[in-house]
């Protein structure tokens, strides 16, 4: 990797870091009902929406149960609407290619996938969906699923600050609308114009027929891509308008668009940690968590970059240049685009899995084995910043466990932000923690012994197992990226991955909301000399250690069987 490549990576991360501070404070202002400069306009918009939904529903206080139930009911209604649009798209407008309705089991998978912020796709966008479906069934939940994750995290944080015993963790609809109209919509709208300027199309046409000078015809798929692309990344969604996702030159036409998309993916999950510090009135605590997450990111990122630049023996044997020079990128360019090169592809790959977006600008299936390991780690830990809201909650799961263990070790009552952490909370937190490995490891193992699981593999041997492991890790983490050689459009994978997405998303949220209810009901203890400080560097290191030890112990054996075994086979020159 050249110096320029590392500089580019450092600059992208630095800009995200600098932006996350003001954006995090802006988020806190929205959640805490402080004044913002957009209020004069947006208060009117919001009031109109409140009136449409019902003044009473959008203003009454909700405890954790009411908040969760309204969240689930809204998600359910949306999922049904998405399902119906997909299945009946041949009866709906903007379908000049006369694409048929989606097959019901695939539509089930797709509706679940998009309402949960996963955006796993067992279909290719341009060959399956009409432009109406792309807008009304795909762009639509990209907003609402991101908002759902965000508001749930906000309600959870409020549990530490409320003084009413948890009777009011906020109003779900109000939070939902304010986050959409004050963050996602304006940012998506303005930045969509930036993307169009860079070359991303935005039209209601579905194809353009061209006549290349060498003869023949080239039919080019096109559509409302820019409006799709901004919210896809800002909301850590990740589903592609086109099959090739953000590798497609229309989705991601230039290095500048690539920079924008990476920054959008990383912006809100990192800002949310800053927002957390603001909300609890302890910025130090926010920075400790920020530090834990950033340390993990900086730890795994170079592995991908170095491994992709080093390339593979297969490429070297074909006489391909591995070192980057001023006039060619070098390294493992299979599945990567010239305009992004190794640095722009590797960084995108790690960001998309760490912030659990799932958008890809290069084909992860063609990554080197060690280059893919950080991607697995991002999805398995789920809190290397993690997805909108949910990544934050996953970090808190580990944080509460760290508090509990540390408390036991030094013989003090475990406390976090002035609330005691006791048996009921730890049981719920442990359940939230254990669901994730269960829904990754069990079904991926089953897929490797069932004929209907193995028949979908696109690559052989260890790499085939990696494809399956990646699919379930991606689904459980609500990521959505894939080792796309796996043929996931079968009844088994559509059903199994759909269910894993559901179980990976809602039960952990419900458990964490129950923890919120339980914590909110407790009195806030004053800080004394006997309090175990959680906003110190020392506790941050302990928090990081807990994540790495628990996460590594859980997933390391699976990684050894897949990418790590393949790395050893690869350097010894085996092919399959």
């Amino acid at each position, binding site marked *: 990797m050249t110096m320029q490549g590392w500089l580019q990576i450092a600059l992208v991360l630095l800009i995200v870091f600098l932006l996350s501070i003001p954006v995090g404070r802006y988020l806190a202002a929205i959640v805490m009902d402080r004044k913002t400069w957009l209020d004069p306009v947006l208060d009117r918009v919001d009031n109109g929406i409140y009136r449409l939904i019902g003044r009473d529903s959008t203003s009454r206080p909700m405890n954790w149960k009411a908040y969760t139930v309204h969240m689930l009911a809204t998600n359910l209604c949306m999922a049904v609407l998405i399902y119906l649009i997909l299945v009946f798209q041949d009866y709906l407008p903007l379908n000049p290619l006369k694409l048929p309705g989606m097959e019901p089991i695939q539509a089930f998978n797709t509706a679940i996938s998009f309402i949960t912020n996963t955006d796993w796709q067992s279909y290719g966008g341009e060959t399956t969906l009409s432009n109406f479906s792309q807008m009304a069934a795909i762009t639509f939940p990209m907003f609402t699923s991101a908002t759902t994750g965000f508001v749930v995290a906000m309600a959870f944080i409020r549990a530490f600050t409320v003084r009413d015993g948890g009777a009011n963790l906020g109003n779900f609809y109000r939070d939902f609308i304010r986050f959409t109209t004050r963050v996602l919509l304006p940012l998506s709208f303005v930045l969509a114009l930036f993307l169009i300027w860079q070359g991303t199309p935005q039209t209601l046409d579905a194809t353009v027929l061209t006549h290349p000078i060498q003869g023949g015809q080239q039919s080019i798929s096109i559509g409302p891509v820019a409006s799709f692309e901004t919210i896809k990344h800002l909301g850590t969604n990740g589903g592609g308008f086109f099959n*090739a996702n953000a590798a497609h030159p229309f989705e991601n036409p230039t290095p500048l668009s690539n920079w924008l998309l990476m920054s959008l993916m990383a912006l809100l999950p990192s800002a949310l940690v800053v927002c957390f510090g603001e909300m609890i009135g302890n910025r130090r605590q926010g920075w400790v968590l920020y530090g834990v997450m950033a340390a993990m990111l900086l730890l795994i990122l170079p592995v991908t970059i170095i491994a992709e630049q080093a390339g593979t023996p297969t490429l070297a044997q074909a006489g391909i*240049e591995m070192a980057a020079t001023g006039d060619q990128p070098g390294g493992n360019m299979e599945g990567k685009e*010239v305009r992004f090169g190794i640095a722009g592809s590797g960084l995108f790959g790690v960001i998309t899995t760490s912030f659990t977006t799932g958008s890809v600008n290069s084909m992860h299936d063609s990554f080197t084995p060690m280059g893919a390991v950080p991607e697995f780690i991002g999805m398995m830990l789920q809190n290397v910043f993690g997805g909108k809201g949910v990544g934050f909650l996953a970090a808190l799961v580990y944080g509460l466990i760290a508090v509990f263990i540390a408390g036991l070790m030094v013989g003090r009552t475990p406390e976090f932000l002035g609330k005691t952490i006791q048996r009921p909370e730890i049981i719920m937190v442990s359940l939230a923690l254990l669901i994730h490995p269960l829904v990754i490891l069990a079904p991926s193992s089953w897929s490797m012994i069932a004929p209907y699981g193995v028949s979908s593999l696109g690559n052989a041997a260890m790499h085939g197992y990696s494809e399956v492991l990646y699919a379930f890790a991606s689904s459980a983490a609500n990521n959505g990226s894939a080792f796309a050689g796996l043929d996931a459009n079968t009844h088994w994978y559509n059903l199994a991955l759909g269910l894993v997405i559901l179980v990976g998303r809602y039960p952990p949220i419900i458990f964490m909301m129950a923890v919120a209810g339980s914590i909110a009901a407790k009195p806030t203890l004053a800080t004394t000399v006997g309090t175990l400080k959680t906003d110190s560097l020392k506790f941050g290191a302990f928090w990081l250690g807990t994540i790495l030890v628990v996460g590594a112990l859980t997933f390391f054996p699976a990684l050894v069987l897949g990418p790590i075994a393949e790395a050893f086979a690869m350097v010894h020159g085996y092919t399959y």
Partner: protein
Amino acid sequence: MRAIILPALRATLVMWLLCGIAYPLAVTGLGQWLLPRQANGSLVKAADGTILGSQLIGQEWSGPQWFHGRPSATIAADTRDSAKTIDAPYNAAASGGSNLGPTSRALAQRLRTDRRAAEAEQPELVGRNLPADMLTASGSGLDPDISPAYAALQMPRVAAARGVPADRIAALIAKNTIGRALGIFGEPRVSVLRLNLDLRGLNEPSRTIDH
């Protein structure tokens, strides 16, 4: 139950109209008005209005007189048997990469075959290291660009096939090379379509200028 379902349904419909209908249509309206060229796919047109392609979408090129793009792994449905697929490079209606892994025997085979074909076309490549983008398939299958090194490698072949001095081809490569954005983002690249479109005008006007 009604107290839960009714607001949930209303919220669904309002958000659907706002985020799923109004938002993309508003971006479409504004994009078409302010930036119509990009919003419609950055199309390249001939003088008579024929659409020759999109500046952003790669095309398949063959023959020694043209610059070639990268290998493309896109496929299409077989017209004789819809259950099967066939190779269809630069199929801009179904993007995608090869998804072949680092220990894939099929990938090793493809690299060997392509290398042999390149050496047959340009014998001076035998034994030389090749630019990384020359034999590898892009992720989209539609990569419009090649590295400057790959373009320079093809220059003698194109110059010989067209019977023009190499430095004139080199000037065209330089003209169609796009540097890093702000000097730091991305990689330098050469747009194959634009370069080949410039080649087209090379032979006839050059005679009138040179003599």
